[in-house]
């Protein structure tokens, strides 16, 4: 059963009875949870459990069939994706959606969009503050590339990067939004064990450096258990457990549905 006592008093993101159906298929079934500020929150479950659908709802890519979502107390259930990004929720994608034909630097610079004010006229004419903004954006983007260890290849096309580097670049791009909440969809996919260890450390660093709240979907159970403060377990669209790693590990429903099958 879900332990209500763990919903503490500092929520940043709240889902209330979220539902989503595709045709006759129920992808997310009456899911409620709260994510606290500065938490690393894990989302696990077998394939097709509805994890990515949940991410897509939080980031506005698909609308919930019913239910509500709140971010810092404001309802965001039906906001369009760019407004949710603007509000402070950034994400990466399970199947990596970089702008492949553009350089790493351009990928990150694009994500500075909401922190740049110069519009059409000022931009075209190069009137202040456009030029200084451009320079600041480029600096910021380079810093972020440096942070993920890609600054020496800033001018290479994103599609030419190896898989693991593309994932890192996507994180840098998401960070360029200066988000409050960072959603990572299977960040460790395709990484080797040592890369996975580094990733855990890196996510913790990000949290403290940027004062972030991190929500991540991950299949690699040891990584999730070691990294997350709390874990939600989905199965067939339903939330079957929510709690700290120890609670989730010993939850019989979880063992049956997920860990047991491993």
């Amino acid at each position: 059963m879900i332990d209500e006592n763990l919903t503490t008093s500092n929520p940043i993101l709240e889902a209330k009875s979220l539902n989503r159906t595709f045709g006759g298929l129920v992808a997310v079934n009456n899911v409620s949870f709260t994510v606290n500020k500065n938490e690393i929150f894990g989302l696990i479950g077998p394939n097709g459990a509805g994890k990515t659908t949940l991410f897509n709802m939080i980031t506005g890519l698909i609308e919930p069939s019913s239910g509500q979502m709140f971010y810092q107390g404001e309802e965001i259930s039906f906001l369009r994706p760019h407004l949710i990004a603007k509000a402070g929720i950034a994400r990466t994608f399970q199947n990596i959606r970089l702008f492949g034909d553009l350089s790493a630097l351009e990928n990150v610079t694009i994500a500075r969009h909401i922190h740049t004010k110069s519009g059409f006229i000022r931009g075209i004419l190069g009137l202040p503050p456009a030029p200084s903004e451009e320079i600041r954006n480029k600096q910021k983007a380079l810093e972020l590339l440096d942070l993920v260890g890609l600054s020496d290849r800033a001018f290479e096309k994103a599609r030419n990067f190896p898989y693991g580097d593309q994932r890192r670049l996507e994180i840098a791009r998401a960070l360029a939004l200066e988000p409050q909440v960072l959603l990572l969809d299977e960040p460790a996919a395709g990484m080797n064990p040592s890369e996975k260890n580094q990733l855990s450390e890196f996510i913790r660093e990000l949290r403290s450096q940027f004062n972030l709240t991190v929500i991540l979907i991950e299949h690699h159970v040891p990584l999730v258990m070691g990294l997350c403060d709390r874990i939600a377990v989905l199965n067939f669209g339903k939330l079957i457990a929510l709690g700290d790693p120890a609670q989730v590990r010993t939850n019989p429903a979880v063992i049956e549905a997920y860990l047991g099958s491993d």
Partner: protein
Amino acid sequence: MAGFLSTYGFLIVSMVMGALLGLSLYLPLMTGQLSLASPGFYALGGYIAAILSTQVFKVSDGLYPIGLVLLEMSIAGVVSGVLGVLVGIPALRLRGIYLAIATIAFVEVLRVLSLNLDITGGAVGIFGIPQPFLTPIEYLWIVIPLLLMSMVLLYRLERIRLGRAFTAIREDELAAGAMGIDPTYYKVLAFTLGAILAGVVGAVSAHFLNTWNARQGTFDASIVYLTSVLIGGTRTFVGPVLGGMVFTALPEVLRAIADTAGLPLWLAQFLRDGRLIIFGLLIVLGTIFFPQGLVTPDLFKRRKDRKSQS
């Protein structure tokens, strides 16, 4: 020189206008939207200029004042822009093929209207549109500044926040949205800028061609300009400019080649009359072998790299 200009004046001005129309198609393509609406706005701009100059301003003696041409161009730009927004907002919710079809429908509706309304002169169209210049070549005074302005605008655009938003949407609309970019806003903006440009060019073109009718800005015309953009290049504004010029000149070039002595008769005839067949073949070959067109940004980058290394 004077002989050359009087012989080729018409062609040179046409080439510059071709480049401008190429740019008007390129603008929506910057956001990845294949819109075939440009010829519609081009036709609209032409009708605005034709109607204003023959029925409203009616300057009877001497040359038609250039100021009035500029005024007509501005009005055509504003009307096209407003219509661009009105059509763009609903139409740009559509993606890919749906948008292409919607813009084709839009152009067809405009064409049928222009064929049947009294104000547009029905099937005959409007003629005797007054001339602001004595010779065709002098139209360069209007179209060259227009082209330079558009090129500077696009050069800047490709290097600022706005251009990056366009590119992001072209590369991956969904990811662009997740990066805080409003795809609808920027798609409508790019579409509208293209519409304004096409309308303005149409206004000059009506004077330049002296007559205006429903054959201007049809579906075929859009294919020809689409060719020029796609073969020229869809990743930098230089592509459509060069493409627009080359493809406008191509019929003349083919005709000139056909006139060279010693060509077999069938080939000479084909070069003269088979222009559109060659266009079509170029489209097919171009899309298969040069999906980003001939002029790509990498071309410039590589040159820059070489320079910086030496």
